[in-house]
């Protein structure tokens, strides 16, 4: 674990958060209404439904790929694998930056009409930002080590 740079640890922790966030609600649809029935009792009609990232968006597999790439250096370090992670840091940064663009696009232009944004989407966005930051920091640390 000592072989991991601070940036790689940040990216790895954020990757775990992202992978968990994929299973939280990202969007909610519909609504419910409670009406009073003829006998005086209340009846709830309709109901809202939440959807996680795996329910119908290509973003699910992309977030999985970003999470795996960000986690790989940590997994290799823990298992005593190869020490050379330089390409992985650049890949983590690049995929993280593109991931931020995709999540922002999903939450704005691609968001279904009438649906609401749920907690998973915001946690996913923050995790993607932290992954990109971790990848960038790991790249900087590798350059500083080489100097």
């Amino acid at each position: 674990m000592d072989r991991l740079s601070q940036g790689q640890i940040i990216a790895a922790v954020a990757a775990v958060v992202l992978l968990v966030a994929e299973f939280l609600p990202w969007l909610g649809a519909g609504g419910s209404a409670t009406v009073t029935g003829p006998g005086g009792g209340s009846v709830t009609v309709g109901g809202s439904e939440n959807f996680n990232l795996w329910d119908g968006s290509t973003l699910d597999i992309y977030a999985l790929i970003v999470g795996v790439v960000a986690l790989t250096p940590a997994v290799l370090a823990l298992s005593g694998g190869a020490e050379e992670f330089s390409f992985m840091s650049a890949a983590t940064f690049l995929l993280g930056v593109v991931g931020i663009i995709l999540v922002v696009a999903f939450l704005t232009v691609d968001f279904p009409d009438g649906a609401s944004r749920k907690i998973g989407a915001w946690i996913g966005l923050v995790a993607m930002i932290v992954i990109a930051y971790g990848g960038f920091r790991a790249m900087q640390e590798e350059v500083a080590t080489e100097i």
Partner: protein
Amino acid sequence: MDTDRLSQGQLIAAVSAIALFIVSFLPWFGTPEVTGIGPGGGSITIGGNYNMWEGENPLDIYLLIVILVALVPAALALGGGGDQPLAPIATTLLAGVGTLLIIYQLFDQPGDLGTKIGIWLGLLACAGITVGGYLAMQEDIGGERY
């Protein structure tokens, strides 16, 4: 335009990126068309074909980024700009992931949405960008081999 300034890998990636952009306007998905009578008595047709830009799916934005990442280094090289050493790596990585996303999309169709010719051509074009980026990477590492 002096295409000799481009390496073979850059050229393959750039041509594939242009092809992917053109293909993105072809039908990628489709549902069977059903025509019925609307409330006012007029006929209504539901279903039809959708190109890459018409789906509520982040794939369109992702592939646009792939196209730009593949084309910008080639445009800079043609304009006499400096070397972009990380460009072939970025092109290979992003286009490789893009190819995986398109393959995943082929097997992850909601409802009765079917695949059309555009998605298959898009898959070929995206794989072409990946190969071009990889060749450009190899050319950068080992000098001009081709």
